[in-house]
């Protein structure tokens, strides 16, 4: 009787341990899955193409900040372009203090990784396809793009200018003989 009692207590402990292992390993697997989801940024093409599949899910998205940062109260709109498409990013203004460069003709924008909730048609924003950001990591800083004058193009333009000017002078000379200038 005493033996069986101790045995059942042992079984209980074992079962409890097993439960603990199963729960902790499934939690670890879930966390790993989430980490993997976030670890591998999804491309804009994939997000747009399979928008229904990703709708409402947490995604990681990487790209260059382009255009204007449009501040709307406590939040702002960023456009992040991954080389194929730009996607609108809705973000708390506190998270964008590190963003100093936005992509344009004169600047290469900061490269960032966004983690947040993807919306196929955001209810809050009139159906826009967007990402509501939870965190932003700046991967690399942007820079100004130097614009050295293209000397070859300048020479070519000057050459053409002489040709046009000469032709115009010839036409002007011809117009004095009664032929209309234009």
């Amino acid at each position, binding site marked *: 009787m005493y033996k069986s009692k101790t045995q059942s207590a042992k079984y209980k402990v074992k079962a409890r341990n097993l439960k603990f292992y199963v729960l902790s390993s499934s939690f670890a697997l879930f966390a790993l899955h989430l980490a993997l989801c976030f670890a591998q940024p999804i491309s804009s093409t994939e997000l*747009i193409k399979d928008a229904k599949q990703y709708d409402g899910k947490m995604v990681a998205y990487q790209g260059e900040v382009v255009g204007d940062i449009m501040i709307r109260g406590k939040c702002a709109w960023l456009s992040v372009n991954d080389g194929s498409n730009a996607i*609108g990013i809705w973000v708390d203004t506190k998270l964008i203090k590190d963003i100093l460069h936005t992509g344009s*003709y004169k600047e290469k924008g900061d490269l960032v990784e966004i983690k947040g909730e993807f919306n196929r048609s955001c209810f809050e924003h*009139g*159906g826009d396809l967007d990402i509501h950001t939870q965190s932003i990591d700046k991967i690399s800083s942007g820079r100004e793009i130097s614009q050295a004058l293209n000397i070859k*193009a300048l020479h070519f333009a000057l050459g053409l200018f002489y040709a046009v000017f000469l032709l115009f002078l010839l036409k002007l000379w011809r117009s004095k003989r009664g032929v209309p200038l234009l």
Partner: protein
Amino acid sequence: MILRPQLTDIKNIGYYLGKITLGLGLTMFVPFIAGLVLFKEPNPSLDFLIGAEIAVFIGLALSWFCQTERELRTAQAMVVVSLSWLVAMALGAIPLFLSGHYKSFLDTCFETMSGFTTTGLTLVQDLDHLSRTHNLWRHLGPFIGGQGIAIIAISFLVGGSSGAVKMYIGEARDEKLVPNVVNTARFIWLISIVYLILGTIILGAVGISIGLKPQSAFFHGVCIFMAGFDTAGFAPQSQNILYYHSLLFEIVTIVFMILGSFNFNLHYQLWRGNRKEIWKNIETRTFLFAVMLASLITIGALRHFGVYSGAMMLFRKGFYQIISAHTTTGYMSIYAQQFIKEWGDVALTALIIAMALGGCACSTAGGIKMLRVGIIYKALRQDLKKMLLPGSAVVAQKFHHIKTLVLEDKQVRGVLVVTCGYIFLYGLGTLVGVGLGYSPVESLFESTSAAANVGLSCGITDAGMPVILKITYIIEMWAGRLELMSVFALVGFIVAAIRGK
């Protein structure tokens, strides 16, 4: 017997073509100066100086070698108009090609033809890094082409000759606002420039209110106005209208798209204080009915299939796209692939029909046009009445377009010829698309968008699409803008040159 064109015919065409080329070259000085003074972008400005100089040189050379005092004949005027659009495409493409944002010269030709014809399909690469100077030219193209390339020449270089009248008609504008065609052309410019100033101020102010910096807001304002009022659909950023994430911005663009798709004659009547015309005119009535029907079907289908749920979503995505399609603007508040992936067949069909029907005649819009749709409806009604009434009854059908007119068989025939031409164009592009492996729905969508000068895309238009499809769409945009007649005249001229005696 077909008569081969004489050297004098070719000289006559070359002379007027030279003047139009010269006019186009002069317009390139606008981005050149803006780039140099406002945007401080010397290299892009140089691209425009080169482009302008080449155009001016060709223009001067053509008017030198083809010097003539002969008046243009109707067929010649049509050839001049159709050729001028091809010349403008090639010359206007030079500065864009020099930007390095296009994969080939054909892609830049596609872009300029799309701009001049107010279509809005684009093949630009990395638009978000394109200079403001080049971007201004992308948007100035529709502003020039929307009013008409030949209209620039008529307004400033050709004068009030009979050739001017023929060129005006050849550019698919058969309505004169005032008796003199030069004054009509100038009035069209006056309307456009007044709207441009107002539109830029309004959109600039809205831009500032939604968080754009003042300089950026007014740059976006002028670009979006030119492409919106001229029903082109280009935008300075790759996300198109979605970039702004603003209901107010979308409402303002809806107003400009509708204004741009209205007949210039209607603007003239409103300008003169004749406000009743807007409610009486067959075009505005047809437009209102068609938009309501298309919106009901689209919104109903989008809601039924759960694509968008709330009223705001349905307005900003469904209604906005219908207005964009019907006015043939092509502004997009969703991504191209979403049409095919999410919208479903019913909403897509309504959108394709809206694109095919288009805006009003004598406007910057493309497609079959509301005047023609209205006339076809009236003709059908007349025929039905004739069937139902006794044979001896005289059935006269009237319609109101600026004044009350009696419907004539000649008008109906003309309308049906052009309508059939458009249907042929839509079908031609669809066949080529299907032949190249795209699905029928995608092919029909993109082909209709190109031929009706809309600019909405379901994703086919891309720098990687086959060359044959790019050429097909260029031809569709060109023929659609000129309503086919001038293109037929050019084909006839080429045939006569080859086979004539």
